[in-house]
């Protein structure tokens, strides 16, 4: 197997020029003002106007690009059975600690590999008893996202994504590994655990878990236990948040999972349209996180300049929904691979804790009042703490990767 090819992001100048040509011609819609809830119908006009102006006049993509390029990136061809060979882009940073734990970080939507960049520098450190374990970190762009290739074919489903990610780890010499993931990444992680665990995938640490509700017929013991324990205030608040999402916040999901191509024309042709589409979620799904204009535009640019184009990222939503059973339903089964669940109270879908026990053997659990959907970006401290806690000395998943415990020496 040939080694991965070193990669540096280098968007052609012509693409930047085209972007600026389009930004200069931007037409803005009018707006219905709701002073008590200015985000109720979507992103406020003043925000989009400000960001468009900044994008046109101040935002420096080359500078953002250079910062991303400080992380060691590669591409490697990965074969997916029945579909072909795909160019997978990824960050791969090895710890100086020889026995570092191989960790794959899987992003979601509207995120990207960038989400690992706040936690990575900490994760590769450590290795001494008092510091916690060290990790080798691998963070791919999912196929159809970032700088990985396009899926190109119908039916490229969560199963195929799982296969590609698993094979990526194998290609790097990591026959055993652990995963941290949220959003779409967490869906893929569940399938990796299902198909390749516990032989290869030794443990998963997940935010944004989506367990099914235990019923008297599906999980009689758990259900009986639950009847005895009332929901906490936080859990009730979580259910209310979840309900609000399903009533007001999942239009994007319904569109992307039924007519992604139709939506794609807009996202490909209008940079401001793409900005609004993604920024609405960056705002709505985070917990009072103060996004800088640079952050927002960097995240959006990764979609705008992506190899597969901004339309392709919707494909997985379509495939998930049209899979039989649907990807969401299929990954709710009990998977016997050590499981860590982190719950952020301000995430989008927040379900009662007891439900998580339907997913697998929980060896680590944590909850945070502060923090939302983009956990590794909003609360890197919490994520690093969790991973060290789960995989370090005395942690529920200590030593899961046989010969790579994350500490110096044996």
């Amino acid at each position, binding site marked *: 197997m040939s080694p991965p090819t070193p990669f540096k992001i280098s968007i052609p100048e012509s693409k930047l020029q085209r972007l600026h040509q389009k930004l200069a011609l931007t037409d*803005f819609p009018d707006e219905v003002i709701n002073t008590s809830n200015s985000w109720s119908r979507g992103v406020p006009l003043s925000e989009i106007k400000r960001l468009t102006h900044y994008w046109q006049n101040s935002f420096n993509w080359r500078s953002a690009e250079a910062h991303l390029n400080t992380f060691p990136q590669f591409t490697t061809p990965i074969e997916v059975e029945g579909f072909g060979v795909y160019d997978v882009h990824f960050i791969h940073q090895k710890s100086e600690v020889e026995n570092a734990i191989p960790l794959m970080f899987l992003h979601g939507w509207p995120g990207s590999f960038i989400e690992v960049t706040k936690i990575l520098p900490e994760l590769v450190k450590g290795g001494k008893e008092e510091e916690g374990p060290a990790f080798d970190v691998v963070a791919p762009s999912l196929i159809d996202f970032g700088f990985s290739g396009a899926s190109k074919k119908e039916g490229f489903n969560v199963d195929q994504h799982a296969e590609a990610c698993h094979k990526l780890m194998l290609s790097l010499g990591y026959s055993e590994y652990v995963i941290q993931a949220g959003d779409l990444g967490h869906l893929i992680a569940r399938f990796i655990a299902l198909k390749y665990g516990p032989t290869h995938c030794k443990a998963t640490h997940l935010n944004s878990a989506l367990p099914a509700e235990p019923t008297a017929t599906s999980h009689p013991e758990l259900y009986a236990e639950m009847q005895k324990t009332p929901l906490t205030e936080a859990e009730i608040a979580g259910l209310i948040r979840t309900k609000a999402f399903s009533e007001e916040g999942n239009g994007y999901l319904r569109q992307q999972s039924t007519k992604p191509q*139709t939506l794609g024309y807009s996202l490909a*042709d209008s940079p401001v349209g793409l900005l609004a589409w993604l920024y609405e979620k960056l705002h709505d799904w985070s917990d009072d996180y103060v996004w800088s204009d640079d952050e927002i535009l960097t995240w959006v640019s990764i979609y705008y300049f992506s190899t597969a184009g*901004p339309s392709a990222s919707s494909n997985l939503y379509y495939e998930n929904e049209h899979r039989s059973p649907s990807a969401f339903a299929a990954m709710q089964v009990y998977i016997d691979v050590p499981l860590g669940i982190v719950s952020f109270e301000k995430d989008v879908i927040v379900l009662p804790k007891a439900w998580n026990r339907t997913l697998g053997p929980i060896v680590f659990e944590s909850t945070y009042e502060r923090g939302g959907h983009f956990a590794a970006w909003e609360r890197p401290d919490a994520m690093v703490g969790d991973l060290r806690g789960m995989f370090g000395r005395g942690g529920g998943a200590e030593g899961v990767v046989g010969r790579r415990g994350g500490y110096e020496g044996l």
Partner: protein
Amino acid sequence: MSPIRPYTIRVSQTEVDKLNQKLALSEFPNELEDAGRNYGAPLGEVKRLVTFWKDVFKWSVVEKEMNKLPNFETTIDVDGFGPLDIHFLHEVSSVKTAIPLLFVHGWPGSFLEVTRLLPFLQESAKNHGPAFHVVAISLPNFAFSSGVTKRGFGLQHYAEVCHKLMLVLGYYEYVTCGTDIGSSITRLMSKLYPSSLKALYTNLVPALPPSPWSLNPFPFLSFLARHILNLYTPAEKAGLEYTRYFQKEGMGYYNLQTTKPQTVSYALVDSPVGFLAWMWEKMHDWTDGYVWSDEEVCTWVSLYWFSRAGVESGLRLYYESTRGDEPARAGGYIPHTKLGLAYFPREMFRLPKAWGHGLGNVVYEKEHKKGGHFAAWEVPEAVAGDLIAMFGKDGGAYGCVKGNAGYASQPS
């Protein structure tokens, strides 16, 4: 009362030039191999339409043709929202006692949809059938009518504008032909203005299964029996199947537009390609094998693109229609106004005819073998035929408008 003014459509050359500037910079997404239509509007079609729109389509020619229609404008005041300029077509029949008929469009339709009915209705007047005075409104936020950016402009306000337009034209009693959201608007009009709206015809029938709690148990028992024993006609079964399929695969735009219309508006206002695809997908999917010419598609899309209040304002109705005092409702018996229900095979919801009887006094009902959501455009002869039958001398709604039964000499 504000006067009725003749109206001339005049889109500025600046706007036309800007559209072409943008089209020239179009960026297209890729498409999955063999995707067909499953994922949305096919790339080949969208590219072809965009090329036509840019290189062949001449808005000035289309505008000239549209200006041959009887276009008018008036100003209607809506309490709390101020005066709105309302554009409409008004074709007065040579038969003085013709039936005043208001055509109410939906999204992504327009007043244009009525123009295919006109020749058939005119023919009817000549051939001893009923005659109609036809009014086709551009709803507020659509085509050449004013936009409303104040929140809370709900279905009842659209209904108010429609009703007031008919009053301004001197039609104190009238009938309606409503499609898409126009169906909900006219249904609400029948609730709010029962002494004016004498009869209502629609092809989008907002029925619900009969309720077990209604005073007359028979419809519900019949429903149960048919449901359990699967006694629906083949057409009704197919209709239910299609309704289920549509709910699952075809409602993304609806979920989005009723919750985050502003977010999607940035893309649709900024990208003519994006907006064309957004509309074209529905124009294709909601019709029954109708062969749209590129010219037709670009005309419909341009009407939105060059609309007075912008593409985004046509979406507001969705957000408002699910909230407030008068959200769009399915079911519910509304007395007084006579109902004419038409069932076309490719309409969005195709529910058993028995359920439609729960909506009111159904005096006319027709199941068609061809046609879809834009029935008046696709199969105008069928829709006109329905109106002629419903309001003609043998029809269930004959003579419902006092003094305007649609015939040159009133029967004794």
